[in-house]
């Protein structure tokens, strides 16, 4: 894959680039500030970009702003946002356009190279990769709470993994269940929540996220 890495800390940027190249990916551009990130994203149109939230010049949410702006100009441009902390607030902003190709993970997730690359590939393919911490917070939303409380423990954990962006096969592997069992769970879950399941994995995840992302009315 052709990847852009936007990260202001030199050591981390080097580490991520090294990791990606070790796995046979091509890093087509790097950026260390917000404006550079936006330029790199628009110039290279990478298969996927890895973007840090906090970057110079303001050291606030430059990276996130750049990623959102790039996706506004190029809808669905795959971006995986990395941060030292995850916020529902930012997750909602990233998911708001419902275009897919979005990831939002804690930086520590790069420790597990396989899972990290898996998430990266998912995002590149138009899927989603949400950090479990964010998903846990989304599931605790009161707006969703009323109907979520009707779910069984197992259905909840399937929903959580789905919200993270995992496919049925991956969920099955994680929970030591068969894929058939998982699809049964997803069907019942969708019925209970009233989500329309049109089968396509990415769209399904987006539906789940849209449901969880409902504004608190």
């Amino acid at each position: 894959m052709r990847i852009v890495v936007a990260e202001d800390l030199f050591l981390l940027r080097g580490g991520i680039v090294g990791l990606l190249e070790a796995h046979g990916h091509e890093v087509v551009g790097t950026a260390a500030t917000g404006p550079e990130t936006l330029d790199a994203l628009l110039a290279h149109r990478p298969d996927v970009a890895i973007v840090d939230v906090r970057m110079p010049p303001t050291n606030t949410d430059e990276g996130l702003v750049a990623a959102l702006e790039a996706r506004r100009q190029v809808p669905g441009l795959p971006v995986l946002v990395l941060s030292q902390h995850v916020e529902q607030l930012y997750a909602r902003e990233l998911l708001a356009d419902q275009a897919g190709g979005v990831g939002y993970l804690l930086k520590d997730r790069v420790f597990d190279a396989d899972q990290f690359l898996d998430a990266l590939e998912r995002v590149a393919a138009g899927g989603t990769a949400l950090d479990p911490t964010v998903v846990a917070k989304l599931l605790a939303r009161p707006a969703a709470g009323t109907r979520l409380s009707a779910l069984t423990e197992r259905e909840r954990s399937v929903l959580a993994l789905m919200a993270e962006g995992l496919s049925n096969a991956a969920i099955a592997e994680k929970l030591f269940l068969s894929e058939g069992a998982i699809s049964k769970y997803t069907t019942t879950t969708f019925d209970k929540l009233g989500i329309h399941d049109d089968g396509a994995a990415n769209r399904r995840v987006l539906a789940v996220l849209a449901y969880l992302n409902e504004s608190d009315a």
Partner: protein
Amino acid sequence: MDSTGSADRERGAMMRAIRSWLFAAGTGFARSLIFAASALLVPILCAVLPVLAALHRFGRVWDWTNPWSWVGMLLLVAVFTLVGARPLGTFVRRLLARWSATSIDAGYRSRETDPVPVLLATGYWWNGHSYERSRRDAERDQLWRRRIGDPAYWRDVRWVLRAAITVGPVCAVPVAALVGGIVAFAHPSVLAVAVGVLLVALTLTTSPLAWRVVRPLAERWLRPQDGGVLGERVRQLEQQRLDLTAAQAAEIRRIERNLHDGAQARLVAVGLSLATAEKLMDTDPERAKVLLREAREGTSESLGELRNLVRGVNPPVLVERGLVEAIRALALDSGLNVHVDPVRRVPLEAPIEAALYFGVAELLANAAKYTPTARVDVRIRRTATTVEIEVVDDGPGGATITPGGGLDGIRRRVAAFDGTLTLASPVGGPTRSTIVIPCESS
């Protein structure tokens, strides 16, 4: 037997009473004399020139018809008052501390409040007020500025003038009466003797009492005044500083303990795992792999702990997005049905933002704890001089601020910025908490 015994006892009691009265009169006389002398020093000095003139000691040094004589006299009095004020004030305070156990704080400015003179590149010494050629000059200049500018010193000056017309005449009564009595006795006439007896009696009766007039007057005029509004403000600021220092110390302790028991300990464990894994790499690769995984998990966990710590010290969203967005993030995480108004950014100083953020966090946590299903409205208002955050929930109400509790913590935290927390929580709800912090909009 009995009657003579009781008479003896009565006589003994009377003797003791008379003796103690005489003793009191004696010490009182001495004290009155000393206070009178200290208070009348200036009037006496006033009289020096005219008296000298009257005695023709140094020729005509003073003549009441010559205006320059008056100027000279006033000059003399002024100089003696200004020079003598501090020693006299100190003298009276010391005597009162010894004789009536009344401690009156002088309240002089101390050396510590002045900056230490620094040698500038120009070769001059800067003492905070002026440039001087040498360190000694700089310090002397500082000393004079400190002394002359000290309100406590001017209080002493005023005391000298006031004491001359209050303490002086009163304390002089026993002494004057005794002198008058002695003079009267010198005249061999019945009337003079009668007057003399009366005057001595006056001395004896007023001696134990006269000097006591000093204490209330000194307490009123020599003690640093509270300064009314300003004094109140100073006390308030001192309290705020104390609260702030205590809060800061507690926070630092918390951070230290967290780091020590958390991340630090974990990193040691990670290091150990790595060292062992290195050793086992060749002989037992399987165990080495397990150890490596453990090490990785350890770093993950310490990162998590550090993240929580950072969140408690200075929440990242606050840094990245400012107060309103940070409160929206709080609202999202609270699990409550929260409505935040407005959505636009409200620029504020970072410490005030943090105080407000943690205040709202505490209020939302309270709401989540007691009325998890309530609807909560957070309203942020910025006026020209204040920032105001109102958190209203439609829960059952009945909340109170208990000392040492979470709400009290908010109150103290915002008090450091002269802010207030008001709570209106009638039983049956709604609960309305308002934090107001004064700050000029920039």
